[in-house]
């Protein structure tokens, strides 16, 4: 096929990388547009303080989306993260307020760090249950996590019988003070939540592109059977992604609870949908095997800025809902359109060459 190679090598390569750039830029463009738009439309939107505030709010959805990205790349879905956020919040709140009652007459109070660790473990555990249902009992991810959505939410409500664990400042005598730091605290002027987003984001990105695990995640999403035959432990990989997703949800649970200084069992409802939206906006395909962490983060920002901006402009809640829906659809439509366009561009190139 020497002929083909000649026609392709010199002049198609640029076309490809160009197309790739386009594809990458897609989400950036969206970001750019919303920023500029609201910068003009909404009062002191672009102020430094505000940028930080927005990032801080985006962080919550962004962190959830990180876990969701891997899940979706393996061709799965995790509908339970919203409920996990709620449940882990209650866990943290309960531990700080009432401690852990060993039914031996005395109660253990954990310090904040321990409390956080326990909560994170809980999140990972729930993720593991999801993974176990999906891999060992081969329940469809949608169903397994849908079930967990209900179970975890119910558990959260039962844990306090619907009440709110409020005023979670801890008590000196219990040595469990300082919990609000996660929510209010700042490091080098940046809120903790933002640092978490950056940290987790970098780790996830590295895993995705530079580690075997990352490759395996893409492979499993692309063709499970082939992956298995290549010696990839498909089930292990799946377990890991759902556990990571649960972990991210628990992190968010902690952050929100600490921000509210109160744990409310209904917290996190429909968070999963916004996370999925961000992931898809970021160019991850629902059919698995394709997606990037960077894209997801940008997707989260686009959604965050959008809803922020609309609220700040005082747009009616009802319109906000409509816009959200349109954006989700539009994102994917544009994505598709660009893929097509790109392909065509290349074809024309080759046609000229050949």
């Amino acid at each position, binding site marked *: 096929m020497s002929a083909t190679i000649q026609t392709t090598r010199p002049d198609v390569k640029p076309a490809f990388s160009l197309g790739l750039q386009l594809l990458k830029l897609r989400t950036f463009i969206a970001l750019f547009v919303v920023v500029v738009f609201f910068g003009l439309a909404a009062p002191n939107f672009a102020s430094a303080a505000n940028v930080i505030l927005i990032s801080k709010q985006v962080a919550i959805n962004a962190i959830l989306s990180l876990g969701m990205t891997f899940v979706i790349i393996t061709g799965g879905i995790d509908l339970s993260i919203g409920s996990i956020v709620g449940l882990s919040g209650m866990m943290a709140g309960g531990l700080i307020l009432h401690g852990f009652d060993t039914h031996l007459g005395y109660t253990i109070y954990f310090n904040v760090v321990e409390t956080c660790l326990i909560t994170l473990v809980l999140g990972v555990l729930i993720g593991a249950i999801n993974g176990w249902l999906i891999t060992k009992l081969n329940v469809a991810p949608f169903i397994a996590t849908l079930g967990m959505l209900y179970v975890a939410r119910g558990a959260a409500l039962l844990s306090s019988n619907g009440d709110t664990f409020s005023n979670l400042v801890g008590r000196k005598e219990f040595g469990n003070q300082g919990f609000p730091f996660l929510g209010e605290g700042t490091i080098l002027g940046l809120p903790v939540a933002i640092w978490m987003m950056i940290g987790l984001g970098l780790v996830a990105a590295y895993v995705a592109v530079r580690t075997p695990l990352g490759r395996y995640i893409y492979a499993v999403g692309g063709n499970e059977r082939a992956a298995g035959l290549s010696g990839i432990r498909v089930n292990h990989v799946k377990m890991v992604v759902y556990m990571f997703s649960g972990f991210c949800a628990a992190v968010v649970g902690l952050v929100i609870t600490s921000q509210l200084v*109160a744990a409310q069992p209904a917290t996190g409802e429909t968070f999963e949908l916004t996370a999925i939206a961000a992931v898809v906006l970021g160019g991850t395909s629902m059919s698995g095997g394709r997606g990037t962490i960077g894209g997801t983060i940008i997707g989260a920002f686009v959604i965050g800025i959008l809803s922020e901006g609309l*609220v700040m402009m005082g747009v009616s809640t009802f319109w906000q809902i409509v816009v959200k829906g349109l954006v989700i659809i539009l994102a994917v439509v544009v994505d598709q359109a660009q893929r097509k366009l790109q392909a065509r561009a290349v074809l024309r190139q080759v046609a000229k060459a050949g």
Partner: protein
Amino acid sequence: AVSARAAGLVAVITPSHDNPFYGAEADAAKAKAESLGYSAIELSHDDDPAKQYQLVEAMIARGAKAIILDNAGSDATVAAVQMAQKAKIPTFLIDREISVPKVAVSQIISNNYQGAQIGAQAFVKLMGEKGSYVELVGRDSDTNAGIRSKGFHDVIDDYPDLKMVARQSANWKQSEAFSKMQSILEANPKIKGVICGNDTMAMGAYAALKAAGHGDVIVVGMDGSNDVRDSIEQGGIRATVLQPVIQEAETAVVQMDKYLKSGSTGAAEKQLLDCTLIDKTNATKLERFKLSN
């Protein structure tokens, strides 16, 4: 228990108990009913009229003697109550009213207008009669939301130096109030006060303010929940308005008992119970929507 069976079953239907307000009223009604020899079950319609309708259907089938209802929307509830009426099962409304008279036997609700006004007066005083403020409104389908908002403004709007810079609905929800407040803050960092249609929203709003380092902003709520009480005691939220919701629930049950026995409650259908202001002075005396004195 035997006698309870004899007296029959009472259904107590309220919105989801994840707002302590509803938990309290439901428990109060249940306790009262049982003390009068009825058996009672607590159900929740999650503010979904369709679900509420099915619950009422189910209770009719279950052969309940009467229904105590904190409803899921003043208009969308009428059909359900009518259905019960047709089935000869009296409904007693608490906390929220419905738009059609003579369907429910009695509608025992807080005097939301009066309550809103005393709340607003406290707010005005705390604000020093000037400054920019934000209003968080309740769920539109709940007449309480509208009435309270009116009550607020009939007072506040008399003070030209009090400027409302944002008004958003947070559907009575704590989490929604939190995120809405965050966003509003971004557009208006210099607000001085926030007045809320209920306590859960007040809690959410205050948390957002505190997290953004605006813990000094004046927040006033309405309901009189323990959460807000604690916050008041720690100098967070400044004031709230206690709804006599326990009294509403208990009165409703008493009148129900009377009605079932004699065929009339001996009271008008619509009954408004006045609210009381809660602030630093009397917060300590508040426990689960009851003032001990």
